[in-house]
């Protein structure tokens, strides 16, 4: 290795003039660069903060204005309407709105939009504030997880928003009745919710109402809860008389649904969307469910007029069944018409009442035990009887009673349907005829009769007077120029009487007739008088004489 030669100073490199690419770029260009960067930053940030553009379909754009109408959730602005145009199919308007970025998570499939504007309805006035601030679009955020950007706006505000505590249930009814969206739901006469929707069942066989029960009332909706129509005024006329019931003033106007748990039913809360049945009234709703039903057919001799399905079957006044149907049947062999009355008997009730006694219920199966029960009762003379519950309305019911004297009968369990023995006693028919008499009497216009009677009396008096005048004429012709004073007239009447007395046929006719008439008038007056004071006697007769 040789030593490297010492470097000479001449070989040292000179500094090269700095040749930077950047030196050619004046500092002034930093300025637009910074501005452009800042501008781009602002644009990007705004674009991000701008949020989501959504489209809402409404029927019309009433009260909506582009760039003016806001979208609010719980009265907090979350966006605004950017554009409004008629939809392509011209069936509505498409409202394009921009929702703020932080609210874009609200945009899920079941989120609902509606326009808040002043509204007047039976339930009250809402949206008055928008008179001043202008209409806006309100939002009810849905619970779905799938996001959406196209919505169909509601034309009417939803009654319950999804964040309202409570539960929704389905109630099936035969018809809608006087119910509507917004009808109230009552629990023990307290407003507990609202009807939020209804839909005709597929096939059109009924209506399913969607009702929303607010918390805390929703926990009173249990598996054993019954719903019934509490709409308006419930007036029922049955064999018990007239009943008038109403839930509240609002329910008269708007219709309503009431609910209550059956006494003794399980208190487990019903889950959301449980289906219930809507009963027409409270009575039917609260009727205990019969686990055991025996259907019998009964043939009555008397008229079935006034016996309608639903009429009670009573055992000494205790309901043990219900009339299911009343029919006509032609007996081909006998060539006669028969009128089968199909009756549901609930043997459990009889047993239940019996259970109160000392002996414990039989331990065998309910079928045989109920048969044995019926058999033993029929053997001891239990018969069905048609009775009038209410003479005025003519409603009838089936009464089960012991008739020891009745010919022995037996239920033939082998034949379906089972025929329950009946009796038709005279009292029944008598009652019937009494009922019809009373009905006819009821139709007699006593007021008019008494009035007519009165006018008859006056005309009779006038007739008498004219007869008197006639007599006077006659008298005049016999003894002319009799002065017309009252005493003389009376005298003339006496004369006339005397004259009449001589006239035997007239005397004998007129005298008793007048007497009878006056008696009849007295009697009628007394009757009217009595009826006025005791109208019930028309039905029940005078106290003392039992029917």
């Amino acid at each position, binding site marked *: 290795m040789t030593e490297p030669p010492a470097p000479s100073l001449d070989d040292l490199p000179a500094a090269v003039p700095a040749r930077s690419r950047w030196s050619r770029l004046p500092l002034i260009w930093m300025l637009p660069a910074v501005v452009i960067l800042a501008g781009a930053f602002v644009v990007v940030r705004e674009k991000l903060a701008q949020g989501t553009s959504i489209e809402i379909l409404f029927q019309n754009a009433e009260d909506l204005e582009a760039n*003016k109408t806001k979208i609010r959730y719980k009265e907090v602005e979350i966006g605004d309407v950017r554009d409004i145009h008629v939809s392509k199919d011209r069936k509505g308007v498409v409202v394009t709105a921009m929702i703020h970025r932080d609210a874009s998570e609200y945009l899920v499939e079941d989120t609902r939009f509606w326009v808040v504007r002043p509204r007047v309805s039976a339930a009250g006035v809402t949206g008055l504030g928008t*008179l*001043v*601030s*202008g209409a806006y679009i309100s939002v009810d955020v849905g619970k779905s997880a799938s996001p959406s950007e196209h919505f169909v706006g509601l034309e009417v505000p939803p009654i319950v928003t999804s964040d309202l505590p409570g539960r929704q249930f389905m109630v099936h009814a035969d018809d809608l009745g006087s119910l509507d969206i917004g009808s109230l739901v009552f629990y023990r006469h307290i407003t507990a919710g609202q009807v939020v929707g209804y839909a005709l069942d597929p096939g059109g066989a009924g209506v399913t109402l969607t009702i929303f029960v607010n918390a805390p009332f929703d926990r009173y909706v249990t598996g054993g809860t019954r719903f019934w129509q509490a709409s308006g005024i419930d007036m029922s006329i049955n064999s018990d008389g007239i009943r008038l019931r109403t839930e509240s003033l609002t329910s008269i106007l708007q219709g309503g649904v009431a609910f209550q748990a059956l006494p003794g039913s399980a208190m487990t809360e019903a889950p959301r969307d449980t289906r219930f049945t809507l009963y027409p009234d409270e009575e039917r709703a609260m009727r205990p469910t019969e686990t055991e039903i025996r259907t019998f057919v009964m043939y009555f001799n008397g008229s079935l007029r006034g016996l309608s399905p639903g009429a009670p079957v009573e055992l000494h006044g205790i309901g043990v069944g219900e009339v299911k149907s009343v029919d006509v049947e032609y007996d081909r062999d006998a060539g006669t018409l028969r009128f089968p009355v199909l009756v549901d008997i609930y043997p459990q009730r009889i047993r239940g009442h019996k259970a109160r006694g000392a002996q414990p219920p039989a331990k065998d199966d309910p079928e045989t035990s109920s048969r044995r029960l019926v058999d033993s009762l029929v053997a001891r003379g239990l018969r069905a009887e048609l009775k009038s519950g209410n003479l005025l309305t003519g409603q009838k019911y089936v009464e089960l009673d012991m008739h020891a004297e009745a010919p022995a009968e037996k239920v033939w369990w082998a034949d379906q349907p089972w025929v329950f023995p009946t009796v038709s006693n005279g009292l029944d028919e008598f009652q019937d005829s009494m009922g019809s008499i009373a009905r006819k009497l009821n139709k007699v216009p006593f007021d008019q009769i008494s009035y007519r009677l009165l006018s008859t009396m006056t005309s009779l008096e006038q007739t008498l007077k004219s007869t008197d005048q006639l007599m006077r004429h006659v008298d005049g012709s016999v003894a002319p120029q009799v002065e017309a004073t009252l005493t003389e007239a009376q005298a003339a009447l006496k004369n006339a009487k005397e004259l009449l007395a001589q006239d035997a046929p007239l005397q004998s006719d007129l005298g008793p007739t007048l007497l009878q008439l006056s008696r009849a008038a007295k009697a009628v007056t007394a009757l009217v008088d009595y009826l006025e004071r005791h109208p019930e006697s028309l039905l029940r007769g005078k106290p003392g004489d039992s029917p």
Partner: protein
Amino acid sequence: MSNPATGRSLGLLLCLDCRATVRGAKAAHSHCPRCHARLHERKPHSLIVTTVLVVCAALLYIPANVLPVMNTRTIFDDERDTIMSGVLVLLQSGSWPIALLVFVASIVVPLLKILALGVLLYSAWRPSPHRRLQRSELYRMVEFIGRWSMLDIYAISLLATLVQVQSFASVIVGWGAWAFAAVVVLTLLAARTFDERLLWDTPQHD
């Protein structure tokens, strides 16, 4: 003292569009060799046009201050604001610097401009060698401050656009604003058509 050498005396023309000095172009239809703009020794019909504009501005100044520039409609009342009452509103609300600004820009400046232009026109019609420097500086002041009168127009336009709360409050522009804007534009035009060289065209005596 002899007359100073002016462009006119030397036969030099100044192109007002590109500030080029053009030599010896006396012809009526000469063009600037640099920017091809029409050349004039003085702005054509400067005095007549400026006078007409100033008179119009002075006439419009009256409705501009009398008519409301802005109607503020609320549910409760309908408030008509002239320029002056607008200033008073600002004063009452406590923002006196802004009130002063608006007062100067909207009332003092247009009035000053009209008066100053009047003085300048008078001295241009009857050129006098006295106080020419002051007049020239007056003209430059007019040119400088003139644009600030537009301030109120912008304020009103923003208010009218912003305050449109449905049926609660709305600001409607009044015809006073139109007249006021016309005053401002006319005085601006007058200042531009006025040729300040006219002030110096008389022989110098001092």
